[in-house]
């Protein structure tokens, strides 16, 4: 890769100590995000994708803790940051948007106050000047008559409007990186696609890189340049969106694609992957997906390493799909 990496994660491990011992929610993750890049992270709930996002923000709370690995943001390792250093980073250079817009905003504080404080936390600026920035940000995310809206409380907004406010807050300080954790899941389908379109436009305009976390491969396909598929705390496949969708190498990715409604023939039952995520406290020794995998053999009982099918398309599987086809293309 020739582009300079904005975010570079190596061997990240985030553990939660429980009465049953320490459980790794994120287990040896490597990731790279370049400036202006859009990375999609796909996985079922419980696959560790949200914890991964929180780890990058330094927001993993006890009993959770980043126990190993390096998160280099713009060349600096942030895992060793003090709380004060984190404060300077969060909301300023890295912003995060959470899943549920109904609970992301303080119910008893005016929208305007919650936006202005996000600016004043990082810039020594008068309230009037901050208000002007906020007003522009509101218009940019498609909220009309911002002056009126700034005086309102969150409950007076619809879910979609609230998520727009949250997005506006994330964009306020023109961050280098935005982490969006399922920001459209709680919204109506029509609102979902609007927000998706807006996010893509806004990130392009501001040059911010974006990490879009979702359980829905379809949504990620619409926005991301590259996709990483997470399963049980590990990244099992990673590659350019187009290529990954065209020739998924990991059986899990293939299963996810097959279970998308758009890919099923009309009138037939949706295909679903049998079984569920393994318990963190009871992980298979080898490949975590093996118990649900039709192709699994004894060879899957040793943990598979990450291998490249093509440059930039990596998979963690002993028997990757389409490997021959992929190699052919490479030749």
């Amino acid at each position, binding site marked *: 890769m020739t582009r300079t990496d904005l975010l570079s994660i190596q061997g990240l491990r985030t553990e939660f100590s429980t009465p049953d011992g320490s459980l790794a929610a994120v287990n040896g993750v490597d990731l790279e995000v370049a400036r202006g890049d859009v990375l999609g992270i796909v996985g079922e709930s419980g696959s560790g994708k949200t914890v991964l996002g929180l780890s990058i*923000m330094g*927001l993993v709370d006890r009993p959770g803790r980043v126990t190993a690995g390096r998160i280099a943001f713009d060349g600096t390792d942030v895992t060793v940051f003090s*709380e004060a250093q*984190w*404060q*300077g*980073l*969060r*909301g*300023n250079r890295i*912003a*995060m948007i*959470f899943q*549920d817009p109904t*609970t*992301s*905003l*303080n*119910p*008893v*504080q005016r929208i305007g*106050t919650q936006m202005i*404080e*996000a600016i004043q*936390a*990082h810039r020594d600026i008068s309230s009037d000047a901050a208000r002007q920035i906020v007003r522009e940000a509101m218009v940019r995310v498609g909220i009309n008559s911002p002056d009126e809206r700034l005086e309102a*409380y969150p*409950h*007076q907004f619809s879910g979609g409007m609230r998520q727009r406010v*949250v997005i506006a*807050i994330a964009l306020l300080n023109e961050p280098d990186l935005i982490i969006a954790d399922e920001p459209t899941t709680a919204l109506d389908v029509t609102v979902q696609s609007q927000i998706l379109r807006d996010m893509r436009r806004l990130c392009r305009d501001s040059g911010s890189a974006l990490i879009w976390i979702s359980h829905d491969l379809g949504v990620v396909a619409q926005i991301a340049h590259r996709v990483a598929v997470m399963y049980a705390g590990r990244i099992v496949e990673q590659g350019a969106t187009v290529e990954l969708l065209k020739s998924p190498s990991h059986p899990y990715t293939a299963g996810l694609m097959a279970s998308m409604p758009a890919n099923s023939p009309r009138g037939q039952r949706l295909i679903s992957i049998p079984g569920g995520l393994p318990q963190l406290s009871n992980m298979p020794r080898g490949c975590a997906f093996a118990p649900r995998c039709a192709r699994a053999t004894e060879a899957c009982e040793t943990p598979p390493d990450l291998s490249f099918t093509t440059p930039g398309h990596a998979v963690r599987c002993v028997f990757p799909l389409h490997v021959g086809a992929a190699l052919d293309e490479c030749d």
Partner: protein
Amino acid sequence: MLAFVLRRVMQSVVVLFVMSLIVFSMINLVGDPVDMLVNPESLPEEIDRVRRDFGLDQPVHVQYWKFLMGALSGDLGNSFIFGRPALALMAERFPATLELATSALVISVTVGLPLGVYAGLRPDGWGTRIIMGGSVLGISIPTFWLGLMMIIVFSVVLGWLPVSGRGETSRFLGIESSAFTLDGLRHLVLPATNLALFKIAMVIRLARAGTVEVMALDFIRFARAKGLAPRRIVLAHLMPNILIPIVTVLGIEFGTLIAFATVTESIFAWPGLGKLVIDAIVNLDRPIVVAYLLFVVTLFLVLNLVVDIMYALLDPRVRLQGDET
């Protein structure tokens, strides 16, 4: 909002009416009130005369009607001991009690809130263990005994503070209080702290529970993701959210402060309502007891009403729903 207030007022009136019935039957059904009024060795003619004079020969519903009308016009009879209208006596004593209860409320919030929030923010710290241990002790210590111990330590042994009474009062903004003179303050400190003690423990527990609950919510996490300083998160995001339930409970508990003031006032000879009613109970001065009872019932109903309205004002969600309907 108006409909809501009206409905609540109507409910309160019904409860008050029922309570007046209960109070009335308690005085009239438990023992013959005439026994209280005359010398046991009086002649039967004398007893009959008293019975007629007090209207006790009339049917019960007529008597109740008279009692009710009297109560509504502010006449709850004369004190047997002081020979003056019960209501006037209570009105004289009430400001002292109000002052004591208000001071206690202020103390309990200013001490309890920071401690409780601290305990909620650092659930595993040893500071938290001390605070929570102290609050268990605070709930267990009988208030009156602690009052006595405070007298022993601060008045008898150290000689810093006076033992009893209200001290010098002065008028400020039309309110007569001991809080405006140094002597008055010196008299106020011990009783107010004593009365506040139980409430401090309660505020600590409420604030801690609220803090733990609110800090786990998404909007706190989002506030952290915005890069806000911990101070700002606590003051602007945590506090407004935990204050709503605390204000509600404290509002209702203000009534219990007035009730518990009976004990504190007896210990520190504070010339308030509580001391009046304890003396009345000991001396079988029933009109005072009845007046106090009706007063307290009214007070509780009003407090509940005020708290509901306050709650609506503090929480924009409730407030605006009210506006829409």
